[in-house]
């Protein structure tokens, strides 16, 4: 059950929607797919609301499963027309950095995406079904590969 009944579904939506889309993009989803995955996750949450004790973690678990099922291999972020224009007009190295993150293999990319949202090793393990050892290993390897990619870039 939800700990605080005053903190309702709408508040969760308003607070978590953008971070959830950002999380999906870090996992490799395009902007459009990330929003679709977020909307689907909120639909699921709406149905399961009374049984979910940790909505933010639960939403990320659903989104991660969605992104993983729809994209078996990391792909470059296909920008929409408007985003492409803005990207070309205002090139930002941080877009390239996001792209580097999404070149990591799945377990490492996922572990780092959870870490970037402030989830501890124990929380990540509980929510993803990985062991704590696997989460630590994925974070360590992901970080090492990212360093290498940054140097090469």
């Amino acid at each position, binding site marked *: 059950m939800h700990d605080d009944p005053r903190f309702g579904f709408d508040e969760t939506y308003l607070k978590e929607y953008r971070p959830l*889309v950002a999380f999906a993009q870090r996992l490799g989803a395009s902007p459009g797919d990330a929003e679709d995955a977020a*909307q689907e*996750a909120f*639909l699921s949450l709406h*149905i399961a609301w009374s049984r979910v004790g940790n909505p933010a973690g639960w939403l990320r678990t659903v989104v991660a*499963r969605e992104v993983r099922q729809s994209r078996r291999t990391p792909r470059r972020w296909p920008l929409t027309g408007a985003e492409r224009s803005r990207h070309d007009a205002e090139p930002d190295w941080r877009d390239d*950095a996001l792209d580097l*993150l999404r070149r990591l293999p799945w377990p490492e990319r996922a572990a780092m995406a959870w870490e970037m949202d402030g989830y501890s090793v124990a929380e990540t393990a509980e929510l993803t079904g990985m062991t704590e050892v696997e989460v630590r290993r994925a974070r360590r390897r992901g970080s090492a590969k990212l360093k290498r990619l940054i140097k090469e870039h």
Partner: protein
Amino acid sequence: MDASTETDAVLRAVRERQHQELEARIDVAARLDDFKARLDTGWWDDLQGCRGRLITEAAGRLSPSPGDAAGYRGTAERLVDRSFREALDHLPELHRLPPAKREQWLLVRTLEQVLDEVRERTSALIPRTKRA
């Protein structure tokens, strides 16, 4: 700056960039209005309608003979409840399926649970058989 600090700085910058980009691009209040306007959870309510059929099917599979199925309804209900709880973790996937496939998804999960239950019971019987 060492490599680790440099990576942390890059990740922080990515997070900040995403925050700025999504803040500018996404009107969350409008998304919530749209979400509510299109909210359709009727398919999940409809799916509850197949619970009885699943329980009957599971009880029949659990029972060694057709006449004993009624005695297995309690176990069957527990297994079907577990299938529905599992379904909650796969709602987006179920949402995309046509209605008949959704019921089939639950039937497959339930039959897997029945199989596990039968295996557990069978393995629990083996030592007693050996002792006899």
